[in-house]
């Protein structure tokens, strides 16, 4: 059940009605309803993996309590590592086993040793990377005594399985979401309205921007060997907007839907393509994952303490692990590595926190510098996206090489019977709208909101891509 499906358009009002009109007596009834709705939502993909979700929930719930109750450090450590290993074990088996087995076999074959690994014929349970990280952060926080264990199983289950964030995040923290589910929610008109704005804007990003860009990006990436330099550059730009529209659109819808139930989720995107350097980009892109890695990997590894080499090592570790989190493929690892390389000069010059303040443009030289830095950050991001999108590293390298050596910048007619440049105007308008509203969560709120909503709805209905139905990219992670 995708957020942009008819099924969800039926599911959401039913749950909303039951939540505010039937199960609104107490927070327990509200939570119970949301749990049932979440499990139903999840089972629409594959009900068999519901057992995995429930098991993972129970494991972290139980180990969290045991860690808190343990009198000895040894016992605390035992429950802590049990949870970590089982959680990572699930991820390892379902997401990474075939990759490691295949890569190991390739390595043996390359030195002349014949190996035929046993591969698992399993599909990746949707959302496993997200709910596993929810559970992990919870257990780690209890272990380090940052939070208390949750004794109410329903409340804890809702924290892990809450349907708006279940399959593609944002990756929530117990410190943020759990306190909200512990109290009865009262209906707040302004919050709900804000939620509607976010849902509509999320749909614009998904069906107008992402899915339309996908048609062109796919046609270019799938036939890159016959594309000219101009098409290849456009292909990378289209993919950059596809993945941004797709994932941030999903996040917007998730946050908006959650607001309808009175619950705030963590913001996941903050106009990342307006970043002035790569460090700022990573503070604005998939914020819940970046901050997760910062808090639960970078800092425990020593963070920026311990000298420059330690900083560099830790930075490379979190970027490569972050890449690997996205999928079991060398292309994601290289994508993470490239981002670490981008980060390196900022780290060495101690300028990775230079661009913290909001962007202000005026008619002066500094503003020109800002614009150039935004463009150059976007450009290098697009280069990295080529590795993210390509099927293999060889494809990505050939793609980039062809941009340089082909040298043909004419318009090109693509295999899908469309010209390569057709989307530029639409992307330009989208960027302008986002730029003018970069200080807000979404562009629809504020004055003349009904008019802006009407324009957004018009865009969805008239310009959306519906026939070539696509799921959200991040579901596969």
């Amino acid at each position, binding site marked *: 059940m995708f957020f942009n499906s008819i099924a969800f358009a039926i599911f959401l009002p039913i749950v909303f009605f039951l939540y505010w009109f039937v199960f609104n007596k107490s927070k327990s009834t509200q939570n119970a309803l949301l749990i049932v709705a979440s499990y139903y939502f999840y089972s629409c993909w594959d009900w068999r993996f519901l057992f995995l979700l429930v098991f993972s929930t129970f494991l972290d719930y139980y180990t969290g309590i045991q860690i808190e109750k343990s009198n000895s450090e040894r016992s605390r450590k035992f429950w802590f590592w049990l949870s970590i290993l089982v959680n990572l074990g699930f991820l390892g088996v379902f997401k990474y086993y075939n990759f490691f087995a295949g890569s190991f076999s390739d390595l043996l074959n390359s030195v002349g040793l014949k190996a035929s690994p046993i591969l698992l014929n399993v599909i990746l349970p949707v959302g496993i990377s997200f709910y596993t990280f929810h559970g992990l952060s919870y257990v780690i926080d209890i272990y380090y005594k940052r939070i208390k264990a949750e004794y109410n199983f329903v409340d804890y289950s809702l924290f892990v399985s809450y349907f708006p964030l279940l399959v593609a995040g944002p990756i929530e923290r117990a410190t943020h979401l759990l306190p909200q589910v512990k109290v009865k929610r009262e*209906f707040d*008109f302004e919050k*709900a309205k804000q939620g509607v704005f976010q849902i509509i804007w999320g749909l614009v990003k998904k069906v107008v921007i992402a899915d339309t860009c996908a048609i062109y990006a796919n046609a270019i990436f799938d036939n890159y060997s016959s594309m000219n330099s101009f098409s290849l550059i456009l292909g990378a730009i289209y993919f950059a907007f596809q993945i941004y529209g797709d994932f941030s659109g999903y996040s917007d819808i998730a946050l908006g839907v959650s607001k309808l139930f009175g619950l705030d989720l963590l913001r996941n995107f903050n106009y990342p393509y307006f970043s002035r350097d790569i460090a700022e980009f990573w503070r604005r892109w998939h914020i819940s994952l970046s901050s997760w890695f910062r808090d639960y990997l970078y800092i425990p590894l020593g963070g920026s303490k311990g000298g420059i080499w330690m900083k560099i090592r830790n930075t490379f570790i979190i970027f490569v692990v972050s890449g690997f989190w996205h999928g079991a493929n060398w292309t994601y690892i290289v994508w993470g590595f490239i981002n670490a390389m981008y980060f390196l000069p900022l780290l060495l010059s101690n300028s990775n926190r230079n661009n913290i303040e909001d962007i202000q443009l005026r008619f002066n030289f500094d503003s020109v510098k800002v614009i150039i830095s935004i463009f150059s950050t976007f450009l290098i991001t697009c280069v990295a996206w080529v590795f993210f999108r390509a099927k293999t590293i060889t494809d990505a390298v050939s793609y980039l090489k062809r941009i340089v050596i082909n040298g043909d910048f004419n318009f090109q007619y693509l295999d899908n019977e469309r010209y390569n440049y057709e989307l530029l105007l639409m992307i330009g308008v989208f960027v302008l709208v986002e730029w003018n509203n970069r200080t807000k969560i979404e562009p629809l709120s504020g004055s003349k909101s*009904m008019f802006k*909503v009407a324009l957004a709805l018009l865009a969805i*209905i008239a310009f959306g891509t*519906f026939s070539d139905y696509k799921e959200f990219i991040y579901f596969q992670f």
Partner: protein
Amino acid sequence: MKHFLIYIAKILVLIILIAVVLDGLYTVIFMQSENRGKIETVFNSEAQKYDVIILGSSRANNHFVSQMFEDKGLKTFNYGMSGGHLFEASLLLKLMMERKYDIKNVILETDLNLSNQHEAEGIAAKFLPYIHNSTTIKDHFSSQENFNELYYIPFYRYIKYESKIGIRETFFTAVHKKTNALNNLGYYPLVKNKNGNMKNNIANLNPLPHNKYYEEIKNLCKINNINFIPVMTPMCENVTGMNYFDKVKKAYPEIYNYENVVIENKYFSSCGHMTDAGAKIFTAKILKDFFNK
């Protein structure tokens, strides 16, 4: 909560309003279409006079060289549509009859397309802008599963088939951007394709015994005194399940089997589609056999 429900109601009204306005606007634009494709052109045309019209799928579109008919003094147009099924061929002929076309001969490419009675969504979609302006189209679609949604929900058809009749096609129609669909009197010549699939497996195909749309075309021709010439057209050498054509012949003895008139791979762009050279050999044979030219 009351305020919120009113707010949502306003948004729903807004959605319906936008859908109704867009539906009307798109439809008006498609009603002006005359140089985009064969369906739009027929729908927006007036009575025409033809000695021969050709109907069928891409195996008609790429195989019958209209100009060769014209050269023999036969006014001809190839209305074969790549990807089309008999569902669309039948409806197109109905529209021609509705517009009082005077047609002497209909050549129908009918072989592989006898195996199903489904619509070809990508082609059938091109009729949908006119569904409220033509009872012929409405009636033809009325047996389709999603007819109610297509007919009664404003703008639904434009959303569902947006790649065919969405904003892009509407824009090009509005600015009268020409396509090549009507070039060469409807015939689309193919060249030798070195990457073309020269193997085909049709072993699992079976012709339906009484294909509804084939029968419709046959009856339309009979009622309107049109000479009906159903033919099977050539396939390349490496086809598994060639007895399909025998099965067609058995089920429909009146269909002329021209499957083996051209067989050499050099005359094929892909297994089911001849090159221009192959099409010319084939068309010459048809002209000789049916028109004595």
